[in-house]
C-alpha cells in the first residue's frame, strides 16, 4: 500500500497502537524554518510505541535517536513545538494568575496575548480539539483598552490641536484684529477649524497621506472593474 502523490511531500502516518498496519514511507521535503522533527522509531511487538522522553525545559532543537537493534523502521513520531505558558490554561488565559493588588492586571493580559500571537505567527500550530482556544480580545474590558491605547494617543492629538489652534487664533488676531470669540462667528474660520481637526485626526505621520490615497483607490477599484464592460457604450 504505497503512499502515492505527485507532489514530493507525503503524509507520514503515526500510530498509537501497533495492531494497525504500518506502511513504510519516506518523508522528503522539510522546509528549513519548519520545526517539525521526524524521528524514526522502532515499534515493539506488544505495541508500546515510541518512548521518547522529552524534557519539558529543553530547548526545541534537540534530536533523539533511540533506534536499537535492526528492527524495521515502522512509523514516525513527530515532535512539534507548542506554545506553553503557566498562565495559559486549557485554551484561555487564567485570569486568576494575573491579579495585581486584588484586581486583574489587564495590561499584563494584553502583553501575554501579544506574546502568544507573535509566537504563533512565527510557529503556526495545528488547532487542538481537546483544548480549543477560546480566548478572544473581547474578554478584556473596553476601558482597559481605552486606558492603555486610546488615552495617550488622544492626549497627544488634543495637545497638537490645542497648539495649532492657539497659534492660528493668535495669528489671525494679529492680522485682522478679530478676537477669538468673533473669529468663531465667521464661516471661513469655522472651515479652517474643521480642516485642522480633521487633519490632526487622519494624518498623523507623513505616510498617512499616501495611505489614505491608496485606500480611496482600492475601495473604488472593484467597482471600476464591473463598470468596464459598459465603457464601450460611451465611446
Amino acid at each position, binding site marked *: 500500500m504505497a*503512499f*502515492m*502523490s*505527485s*507532489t514530493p*511531500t*507525503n*503524509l507520514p502516518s503515526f*500510530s498509537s497502537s501497533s495492531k494497525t498496519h504500518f506502511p513504510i514511507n519516506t518523508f522528503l521535503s522539510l*522546509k528549513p524554518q*519548519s520545526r*517539525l522533527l521526524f524521528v524514526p522509531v522502532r515499534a515493539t511487538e506488544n505495541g508500546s*510505541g515510541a518512548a521518547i522522553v*522529552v*524534557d*519539558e*525545559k529543553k530547548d*526545541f532543537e534537540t534530536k533523539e535517536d533511540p533506534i536499537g537493534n535492526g528492527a524495521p523502521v515502522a512509523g514516525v*513520531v*513527530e*515532535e*512539534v*513545538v*507548542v*506554545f*506553553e*505558558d503557566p498562565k495559559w490554561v486549557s485554551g484561555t488565559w487564567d485570569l486568576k494568575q494575573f491579579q495585581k493588588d486584588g484586581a486583574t492586571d489587564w495590561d499584563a493580559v*494584553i*502583553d501575554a*496575548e*501579544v*506574546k502568544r*500571537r*507573535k*509566537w*504563533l*505567527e512565527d510557529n*503556526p*500550530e*495545528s*488547532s*487542538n*480539539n481537546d483544548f*480549543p*482556544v*477560546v480566548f*478572544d*480580545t*473581547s474578554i*478584556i474590558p473596553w476601558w482597559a*483598552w481605552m486606558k492603555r*491605547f486610546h488615552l495617550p494617543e488622544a492626549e497627544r492629538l488634543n495637545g497638537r490641536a490645542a497648539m495649532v489652534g492657539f497659534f492660528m487664533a493668535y495669528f489671525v488676531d494679529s492680522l485682522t484684529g478679530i478676537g477669538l470669540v468673533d473669529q468663531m462667528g465667521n464661516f471661513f474660520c469655522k472651515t479652517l477649524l474643521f480642516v485642522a481637526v480633521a487633519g490632526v485626526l487622519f494624518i498623523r505621520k507623513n505616510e498617512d497621506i499616501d495611505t489614505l490615497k491608496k485606500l480611496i483607490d482600492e475601495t473604488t477599484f*472593484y*467597482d471600476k*472593474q*464591473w463598470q*468596464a*464592460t*459598459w465603457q464601450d*457604450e460611451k465611446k
Partner: protein
Amino acid sequence: MAAITHPLHSLTLTFKTPNPRFTPLPKLTISATSTSNRHISDRKLTAAVIGGGPAGSSAAEALASGGIETYLFERSPSGAKPCGGAIPLCMLEEFSIPPDLIDRKVTHMKIISPSNLTVDFGKTLKPHEYISMLRREVLDSYLRSRAESKGVMLVKALVTNLDVPFQPNQPYIVNYTVNNRMEYLPVDVVVGADGANSRVAKAIGAGDYACAIAFQERIKLPDDKMEYYENLAEMYVGNDVSPDLYAWVFPKCDHVAVGTWTMCSKQYIKQYQHGVRSRVYPKIAGGKVIKVEAHPIPEHPRPVRVRGRVALVGDAAGYVAKCTGEGIYFAAKSGRMCGEAIVKASEGGHRMIDESDLKREYLKQWDLQYKTTFRFLDLLQHVFYGSNAAREALVELCGDEYVQRMTFESYLYKKLAKGNSWEDFKMVSNTIGSLIRCKLVGKQMEAFDPNVLAKVARLHKIS
C-alpha cells in the same frame, strides 16, 4: 418593452446596428439567410454554447426551452473539475437538483484564526438548512443531460477557434475538432461558458483578468478521522496558509479536500499548502493523498463581457465572488439569465438579436441583481483578509450568533437577509470594536522583542 433605467447610466432603447469593429480574419463566405432586419422567417435562431459546465448547461437549457436551435460544445464530458464543490440551498430549488446527487450535507463549519481561536459556525442553522457538497462530474453531467432532454444538441468536441464575422449580418463560425477532424458550424449567437481560460473571450478581445490560483489535495482519511468531518467543513485563515484569502478542509463523498488559494503570492502556493497541512495535521494524519489538483479562479469580471452577438457567462466572464470564491451558483445563474435574455430578445428565436439586446436583457439585469453582493463581498475581503490582526477580528466576530445567522441566510438564499436594525447596529459596533482591538494587538506584536519568545515553547510529542 419598458426602458429600464439603471441608476448608474441610462440607456435608451434603440435597435442600432453594431459598429463593425471586428478583427480582420481570413475571408470565409457563408451565405447567411438572415439580413440585419430583425425578423428571420425561414429558420430559428441558432446558438452555440461553448463549454458544458454549470454555466453552459444552464444557458443551453434556457435557450432550447425558449425554442432556439442550440448546440452545446464540451470537450471532456467525463472530466472531474477541480472545485470546492459546495452549492447553496437556493441552487437546489432554482435549478431543480435532485437530492440524490448530494454527497454530503455540511451543517457545521469551523473557522480557525491564526492564533487558533476556533468558532463554530452553524449554530443557527435550521434542520432543513445545509451546504450541499457534490462531485462536479456528477453535477455537470446531470445538468448536461437535462439540457439534452430539452432539445440541446450536445457536441463532444474541442472548440479551437471562433471566427468573428466582418459584416454585422453574417454568422459566427465555431471551428472545432471532433474525431481528429476539423469541422465548423455557423451560428447566430455564441455564449462563451468555457471557463477561466476562455477561448471565446480571447476571440472577441474581451480583455484579461487577474486570477487567483487554487490548489487542492484530495486525501482519503481513516474512518475514525473521517467521522470528524462527517458534516463539518473547516476554514483556516492566517499568513501561513494564505496571505490574502483562506485555506479549507471540505468533506467530499468519501474523502476530504484540503486546499488553499491565493491571489497575490501564486508562486508560493505549495508553501501555503504545506502550511495548511501542518495546521490540520493531527486531523488528517494517516491519510493518503489520492489526487492533487489546481485551477485558476478569476478575481473580477472581464473588461468586456458582451461584444457583438457573443456573451460570456460564468467563470469566462469572471463571476466569482470575492471573499468566498463561490462560482458554481453564479455560473449557473448567469448562464440561465443569458439564455433567457436571448430568448426574450429574439422572441422565441424568430428575430435576430444584437449587442444592445444582450446588454440590456442580460448584462444590465445581472449587474442590477448581483453587483451589490459582489461589491459587499469585496469590501469584506479588503477589511478582513488584509492582515493577521484583521483575520483575528473576523473570527472573533463570527462567534456572534446574529452574524452567523445573517451570513448563512445571505449565503444560502443569495438574498440580503432581513435583520433588525438594533442588532445590525450592535453588529457594526462590535465589528469596529473587534477590529480596533485586534489591530492594537497587531501593532503591539510588531513592536515585540523577539528575544523574549525564545523561552516559551516546550516540545510536545504527538502520538
